[in-house]
């Protein structure tokens, strides 16, 4: 770990000021990802701005009937909050399928949004190639061991995946990220928050360097009755997804009025294909309809040497998640 300066911020503005552009600073919340990355030399901030004392941990209703999740609310508290469990069970399930109880007790909602990839070529600084760590050095995974890598939305500069479960549910729920920076507050739809790698994989979000996440705002959801988060992995717990599916259906009188589908473990960001969701609208829940949506979801998939299985796995997982959400499994 490199030597660094530690500062504790007393309010959001002080935090933003302390993380000014020249400071090479990182905000420290739960630290479950950042501190690990500092230990293995991937992150080398010169300053840590501890934001744990900021009053951003509340979970409270919004006037529009939605719910505001404070950036510093812990993942455990969020997943187990009565309003989340009642109105957004998809989110609760997604969070609880990630990490371990100990990690969730410490990890925050804002930090979860900013989790960095588990790609080995990124995590181990002794691999020479990684365009995220060293822009222009190449992508070690492209010709390397890439079983856990992206099949959608990747580029020849980076095939890493986003590791979060929470974000997959947030994508399906169309959450909005409320941030504050030097120029004031702004709202970023979750779909625009994470970026695809393109030619600049080192830029992972649309967040500006000194911007601070204040909250995750959930719009009112018609999907509480029929949703399911399915995570496929090699072992039963404490592992990142091979493929995960957030499936949400609004079913009225036996017909799907609207659907939301998001995939994890397959791309640099939670993966949505609106066409697949539209295909489900107006249909009766059925294995045929679900498989058609599944095919559409992965239609653009491009596998690499070790991960072609993810296409079939994603299709099957989508059908299974939709079936469980619809209650027809």
């Amino acid at each position, binding site marked *: 770990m490199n030597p660094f300066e530690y500062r504790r911020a007393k309010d959001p503005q002080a935090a933003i000021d302390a993380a000014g552009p020249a400071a090479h600073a990182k905000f420290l919340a739960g630290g479950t990802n950042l501190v690990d990355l500092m230990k293995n030399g991937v992150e080398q901030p010169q300053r840590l701005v501890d934001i744990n004392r900021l009053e951003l941990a509340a979970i409270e209703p919004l006037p529009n009937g939605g719910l505001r999740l404070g950036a510093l609310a812990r993942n455990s508290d969020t997943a187990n909050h009565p309003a989340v469990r009642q109105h957004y069970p998809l989110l609760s399930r997604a969070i609880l399928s990630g990490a371990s109880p100990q990690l969730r007790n410490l990890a925050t909602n804002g930090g979860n949004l900013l989790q960095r990839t588990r790609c080995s070529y990124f*995590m*181990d600084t002794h691999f020479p190639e990684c365009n995220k760590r060293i822009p222009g050095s190449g992508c*070690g995974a492209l010709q*390397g061991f890439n079983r856990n890598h992206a099949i959608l939305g990747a580029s020849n500069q980076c095939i890493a995946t986003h590791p979060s479960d929470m974000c997959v549910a947030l994508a399906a729920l169309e959450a909005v990220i409320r941030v504050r920076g030097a120029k004031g507050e702004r709202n970023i739809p979750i779909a625009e928050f994470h970026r695809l790698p393109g030619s600049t994989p080192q830029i992972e979000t649309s967040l500006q360097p000194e911007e601070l996440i204040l909250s995750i705002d959930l719009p009112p959801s018609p999907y509480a009755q029929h949703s399911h988060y399915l995570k*496929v992995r090699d*072992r039963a717990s404490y592992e990142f997804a091979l493929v995960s599916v957030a499936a949400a259906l609004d079913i009225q009188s036996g017909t799907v009025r609207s659907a939301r589908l998001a995939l994890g473990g397959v791309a640099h960001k939670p993966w949505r294909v609106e066409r697949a969701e539209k295909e489900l609208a107006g249909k009766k829940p059925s294995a045929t309809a679900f498989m058609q949506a599944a095919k559409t979801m992965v239609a653009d998939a491009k596998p690499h040497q070790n991960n072609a299985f993810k296409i079939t796995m994603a299709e099957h*997982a989508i059908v299974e998640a939709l079936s469980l959400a619809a209650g027809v499994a």
Partner: protein
Amino acid sequence: MSIIGAPLTRVDGRLKVTGAAKYTAEFQIPDLAYGVMVESTIPSGRILSIDTEKAEHAPGVIAVLTSRNAPKLPGAEKRISLLQDDQIYYNGQPIAVVVAENLHQAQHAATLIHARYQAAPAKLDFEAGFPTSYPGSHNGEPGDAGWGDTAAGLAQAEVKVEETYTTPIQHHNPMEPHATIAQWEGDSLTVHDATQAVTSRQEYIAKMFGIPPTNIRVIALFVGGGFGCKGQTWSHVVLTAMAARQANRPVKLVMERPQMFGSVGARPRTHQRLSLGATREGKLTAIRHEVHAHTSVIEDYLESSAFATRVMYDCPNVATVHRLVQMNLGTPTFMRAPGVATGTYALEVAMDELAYKLKMDPLQLRLLNYTEVDPGTKNPFTEKNLRECYKQASERFGWAKRTPDVGSMRDGSQLIGWGIATETYPARGLPASASVSFQPDGRVLVASGTQEIGNGIYTIITQVAAETLGVAPDLVDVKIGDTTLPKAPISAGSMSTVSVMPAVQAAAMQAREKLIALAVADSQSPVYGVGADQVDVQDGKILLKSSPAKTESFATLIGRHGSQPVEGNASLKPTLDQKKFAAHSFGAVFAEVAVDPNIGVVRVRRIVAVFDVGKIMNQKTAQSQFIGGIVWGISLALFEDSHSDARLGRFTNANLAEYLVPVNADIPEIDVTALDIPDMKLDPLGARGIGEIGITGTGAAVANAIYHATGKRVRDLPITPDKLL
């Protein structure tokens, strides 16, 4: 009173759960400095230059050792990396050691060291190395052996299975990483080391530095798991001693988890070609088991996968062949049930395939080919009750209710499968010594230089001494893990019980005889003048058998004799004549799995196993050993796999998030039973080692259950969901 065998709770359990048991890295020594190893990042070539200047000037740095300034060691050899030259043989090879005032300073300075390399072509394609592979041996046993004519046996076979089974590289990953503390005083060295073998550590370090072994003391009071990777002396142990001498300070070096995937061994990758021939009735006519396993370019280690094939079944024609394939990876090593864990997977899956081809129950096939004698030599087994294992395990499991067709058992949308396999592991011992003494304070002290690696040896030593001496277990103190104690062998190969317990028993008997002799010759003793055979020791008291009221405590007796301990010593060698008998443990393991056919996820639902492993020393610790082995067998079947980058020979999952071992949610109810039939031909206690047999066969039982559930025969471990889609 029978203390041996009783389910005595671990005597060191409280120390362990309260943190009072001191593991190597926990020793605090005045003036201690901290060492961190820097490792190569290429698999083959040489170091052109190493820039250490920034590291040398970093805060707190005391010394930086590289091949430029490291002292030349008289005993240095190629198998470990002691900074003697600039050659690189694998990615993760130690190339420097940084010593600093504290750990964080040493870790930071280590990141400031940059090596420039001249890369050479690396051998990283396993199968490409087959044409240049060569024979080897394992623990002195030749890799190639057999009997009869397998070509003829296969030619006459009416039914054949000819398949290839592959197993990946695995890393041991004990909870406690490797750790060493080295402290010099003049030419004398004290080493605290996380080791399975204090004595061989002492001898090897002495050889490296060219000093007498008696100048070196090695201590390992508790070891947080070894599983084989703490058997050999690897680079870091000697480097720590070298760094301590260079820095003129005691130095502690604790490996980080990613470093556990480099210079400290692994289970080799195997490629196993199995050919089974049988008559239509299911009688084996031939077994050919040909193994390719990787080793490094600096040392041969042979994974003896086909050794178990030499003892399992009655078959007139058997050939077992092993070939070593060099790769630019760290040298592999012994890992729990070396050879047997990987070999029984292949053999026992092949037997299942044969059973399906014959349309025969796989248990019936095994009974049909049961062997009452060692099939190669025709020597009798010291003791073998495998039939009883099959019987009890199949009854406990409910095997009779199995429907044999694949996919024929279901639970909702889940496919259910049942599979079986045979387990086995050789039984053997090595020379060992122990001392046992009655102490003036009324307690008993047992000493032997064996090691506690989680195996429960503190506890069973206590039991053997307590029973032999007629004292309560809580009056017994045990000292182990120190080269100042009577020599005992490496804690490995399921050998500790067979080796150490007879020595403890013999030393205790001698101490008891001496105590009684002292008593009957003492005019103040209540047993004065009687024959030694008239005297007994019970509950810490000496008493006259015919008149138990004539008694006194041994402490009182010793008190009258200058308060000198009454000590017995024993140094024993195994007595079994291996030319006349074969000694092996056996067992039967049954598995139930549920498979989600859509997404390929497997859950093991039940394991039932019954073992024939001789006399059980402690029902509770034995249970734990069996369960631990079985959990690892499940892990072998479903999870563990060290992935490496094919160009750099560097492992891509060198951490415990991505190197998968089972979590609690992966492990079902495990029902284990031991027959508890003593093997009196093997050793005076009738016990065999039990540390490894649980992992054998289990992988095959799970794989066979998956086939029964799905009809998919995965012959490449681990069986991950993608292979079942």
